[in-house]
């Protein structure tokens, strides 16, 4: 499992993501700067968290239109696995790889805490080592993670099992529709999520609940 991590100005979780990928897959990921126009040959591209372009215009809006994203989009449409976490979720959603949008938290506050994350679909390349319905502890840190989409899209997401992660009852930090924390595209190769699983994989993180997600990449 070879991977690349795309880096934009203002991103700050790329190092954590690269360490998590290396620790679990055994391969050091390649960091790809946003001005590049072609991805290296990899099995997975991760768009990490942070505050690309200071969240100017809309979260992820400017990063989503950067040169490297043209190739990310083209390869994603051909089946390349893409994972977007936090700002990365916002970026790939702005890039049109996932439906819906992420807007200001309903409570208006930036939320930085641990939430309970329920795995709704364990038949994906990121969740195949976790039981369906498993509840994982996972940190969130965002001001705009409130997932919204139109009624038809929501119906399709739910009906097609494309809600991969949901905040467990009472754990929704942002007012997201149907407690949605992570979704995937129709083909199943693109997954986006607001919580930070890369920060819950080592004993020093306090818990290792999310390590099986990354270990699942090896089986995928």
């Amino acid at each position, binding site marked *: 499992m070879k991977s690349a991590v795309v880096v934009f100005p203002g991103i700050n979780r790329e190092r954590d993501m690269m360490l998590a990928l290396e620790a679990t897959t055994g391969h050091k990921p390649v960091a790809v700067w946003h001005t590049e126009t072609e991805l290296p040959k990899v099995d997975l591209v991760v768009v990490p968290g942070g505050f690309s372009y200071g969240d100017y*215009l809309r979260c992820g*809006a400017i990063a989503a*239109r950067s040169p490297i994203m043209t190739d990310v989009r083209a390869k994603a449409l051909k089946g390349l696995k893409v994972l977007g976490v936090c700002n990365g979720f916002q970026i790939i959603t702005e890039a049109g790889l996932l439906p*819906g*949008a992420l807007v*200001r938290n309903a*409570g208006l506050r930036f939320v930085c805490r641990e939430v309970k994350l329920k795995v709704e679909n364990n038949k994906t390349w990121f969740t195949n080592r976790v039981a369906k319905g498993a509840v994982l502890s996972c940190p969130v840190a965002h001001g705009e993670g409130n997932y919204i989409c139109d009624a038809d899209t929501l119906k399709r997401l739910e009906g097609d099992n494309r809600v991969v992660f949901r905040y467990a009852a009472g754990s929704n930090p942002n*007012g997201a529709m149907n407690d949605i924390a992570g979704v995937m595209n129709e083909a199943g190769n693109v997954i986006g999520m607001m919580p930070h699983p890369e920060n819950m994989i080592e004993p020093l993180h306090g818990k290792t609940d999310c390590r099986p997600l990354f270990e699942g990449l090896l089986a995928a």
Partner: protein
Amino acid sequence: MKAKVKVTLKNGVLDPQGKAIEGALGSLGFGGVNGVRQGKYFEIDLAETDRAKAEAAVKAMCDKLIANTVIENYAIEIA
């Protein structure tokens, strides 16, 4: 030419910032405020001199970047 672009949230999209402003107006004693929706306003300076071409270009800009048409509407004024 100059383009003025207004971007507003679509009906039904929750606007917690607008709600907070509405609450603050109420606490300042402004009665009769039935609702507040916050939007964005852009002024774009264009080299184009043909009105129709300018409008078409700004429309493309809005669709591609300035607005997220999943959640926002936009209105363009060319002057």
